[in-house]
């Protein structure tokens, strides 16, 4: 480890073996199934929606008589606008799908039972939030 490494180690005092211990925590074998990724999927898509949504907000004009034109501008004229908008649209659809699949997984693995009842309640709130935001976004422009 050179001078640079020593400089960082002095300021961030975590050794490699400590880091390994933190990140190599074994995942129980019964969790190593793809359907346990269905909770992380909407979480990731949420971040994608935030990032692409902020990008689209630079051009989107929300009032009724400018909305359509501004979206047309994004799709047809702004560089890569079609791409950013497509990601946002697909992300919205896939997020709803992933949340529902996640809820199905939670239901069929019985993961809502004691002591996870609160998880289920929070989850229901998240489901409603996802559907509401999806609906309001969809109502901005239809095509």
């Amino acid at each position, binding site marked *: 480890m050179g001078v640079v490494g020593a400089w960082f180690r002095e300021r961030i005092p975590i050794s490699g073996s400590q880091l390994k211990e933190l990140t190599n925590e074994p995942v129980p074998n019964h969790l190593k199934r793809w359907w346990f990724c269905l909770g992380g999927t909407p979480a990731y898509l949420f971040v994608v929606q935030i*990032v692409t949504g902020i*990008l689209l907000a*630079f051009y989107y004009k929300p009032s009724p008589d400018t909305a359509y034109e501004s979206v047309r501008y994004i799709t047809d*004229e*702004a*560089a*890569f*606008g079609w*791409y*950013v908008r497509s990601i946002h649209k697909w992300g919205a659809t896939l997020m709803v799908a992933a949340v529902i699949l996640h809820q199905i997984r939670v239901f069929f693995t019985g993961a809502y039972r004691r002591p996870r009842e609160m998880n289920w309640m929070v989850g229901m709130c998240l489901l409603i939030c996802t559907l509401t935001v999806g609906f309001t976004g969809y109502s901005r422009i239809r095509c």
Partner: protein
Amino acid sequence: MSENPDGGPGGEERRSFLSRVSGVAMIGGLVSGYGAFVHIAGRFLYPARKPEARWLYVARVADVAPGTALAFQTPGGSRITVARRGDDFIALSSICPHLGCQVRWEAQHERFFCPCHNGVFDATGKGTGGPPKDADQSLSTFPLKVDRGLLYIGLTEEVAELDDDVLREDSRDAPPGPGHDPCLFERPRCDGEWRV
């Protein structure tokens, strides 16, 4: 780690080599993937620049007699009428401002005529009949400049878009070659004497 669970000599070494390679591949993939996205986001946010007017050569000033006109074709195929009146030049689009049909010069009536809804324009491009007159529309004009005896036309963004449309339309439903512009077949009628 010493009993070498992979079996065979060198298993340990091979494993660390593979994990190093897959680690590098994974980080490389993430960096290039997110890097591409950051690039795209930057391009998306960077304000679109208006293309500057391109100056294209039209003709030698000496070759255009006062009172005559010529049909200039843009690289994309749009026609622009360039007319000379005394020492002044005027460049008129051949796109009807009503609904975008091609207008043509009728020498015998000294007017531009649009066949779609009987639009009429006088020699300066002002609407004098049909829908263009009702809406007080004129044929759009283009900047011209004379430099050392040569005449140039300034093609704006609008023309670039027009050209795009012309090209797209042609490649969609017309064979290559002369388009549906009647003047390509009936030159004499279109290049008739121009008086302003």
